[in-house]
């Protein structure tokens, strides 16, 4: 059987086929036919995007002003290497205390990560079914200047799951995080600081 035409796929998604025609399409897809399956998935995504589209284009003059950036800048964008710094763990309360010592005390886990420019203080508070993560970025510069950061909680595969921003004291929080292993990434504009393999556990 030849591949399914877009018109058929459109009618399939729009529930416009007879039971017999629909059965033929299902049978073709179940062969499996990867190409038609991919076309169907793409078509479904595009139609869904179109149906829900409430995006707004900038006014023409605003877009033109931005387009002109590429014409008015005398220098081409520099090919700066992207810098990613992995913060090193320098303190972990779970490693410091014996199991006897932890008996009866708070179960919150305290950690400190360091880079050349900052320390990152983390506290994980386990709940019954999930965890809260509280943190603070502390500058190690003599000026003590706190650079605002965009913080994202990512899956171990690097997919952004949640995001927040540090406040004026460098603090941030993520709440109700399910058990699992995550990366915490701080976007500081000119570099990215990552804490990888952060484990959240619940009893």
């Amino acid at each position, binding site marked *: 059987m030849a591949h399914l035409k877009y018109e058929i796929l459109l009618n399939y998604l729009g529930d416009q086929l007879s039971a017999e025609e629909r059965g033929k399409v299902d049978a073709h897809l179940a062969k499996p036919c990867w190409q038609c399956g991919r076309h169907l998935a793409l078509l479904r995504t*595009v139609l869904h995007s179109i149906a829900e589209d409430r995006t707004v284009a900038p006014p023409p003059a605003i877009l033109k002003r931005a387009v002109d950036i590429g014409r008015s800048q005398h220098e081409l964008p520099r090919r700066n290497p992207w810098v990613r710094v992995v913060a090193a763990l320098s303190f972990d309360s779970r490693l410091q205390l014996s199991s006897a010592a932890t008996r009866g005390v708070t179960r919150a886990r305290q950690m400190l990560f360091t880079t050349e420019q900052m320390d990152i203080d983390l506290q994980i508070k386990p709940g019954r079914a999930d965890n809260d993560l509280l943190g603070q970025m502390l500058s190690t510069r003599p000026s003590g200047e706190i650079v605002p950061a965009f913080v994202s909680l990512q899956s171990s595969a690097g997919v952004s799951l949640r995001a927040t921003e540090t406040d004026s004291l460098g603090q941030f929080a993520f709440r109700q995080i399910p058990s699992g292993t995550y990366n915490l990434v701080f976007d500081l504009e000119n570099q990215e600081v990552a804490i990888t393999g952060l484990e959240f556990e619940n009893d």
Partner: protein
Amino acid sequence: MYTIHRMTVQPFALLPDPELIEVCLKGSGQAWEVLLVRYQRLIYSIPLRYGLPEHDANDVFQNVSLRLWENLGGLRDRARLGAWLVITTRRECWRMMRQRKPDTTVLEEQALEEILPTGPRSEDEFLILERQSQVRAAIGHLEAPCRELLSLLFYTEPRPAYSEIARNLVIPEGSIGPSRSRCLEKLMKILEDMGFADV
């Protein structure tokens, strides 16, 4: 209406982001224009979703465009430009809010979303915005008959009747269905060339 210079930008219009960025880095103003047009709706819609007024959204758009230009050469993953733009635009919105409320101290997850309750609630919503922006850009690269047909069919509110579309485009009403399929097929091809992901 802003008119993209169809004849001059066409060679770059269908390039996936990584290749398009590479052409930008060689100094092509046209490639830069294509890149901005591709993501204009994504960048501009985010401040509006957060409830920022239009003049702030204009400033956010300009600032993000400038930051994109400055960082083109250093993007860590050119295939994930949309995600980079979402983060950068959200940060610009956040800055804008800080300027409006300098005393604001926030220590809550999704801080910006809580300050601005109309904002998107999940990362998925930003991904949808990214796709919508790309699809709109791809429709802009279709030839006029298809571009006009799909715009009338999908983006005009209230949705016009087939008879009205046929009258507007001077085509038989019975040809709208088959034409819609052909035009969507062309759209899919453009999106595939652009590296549009359906997952």
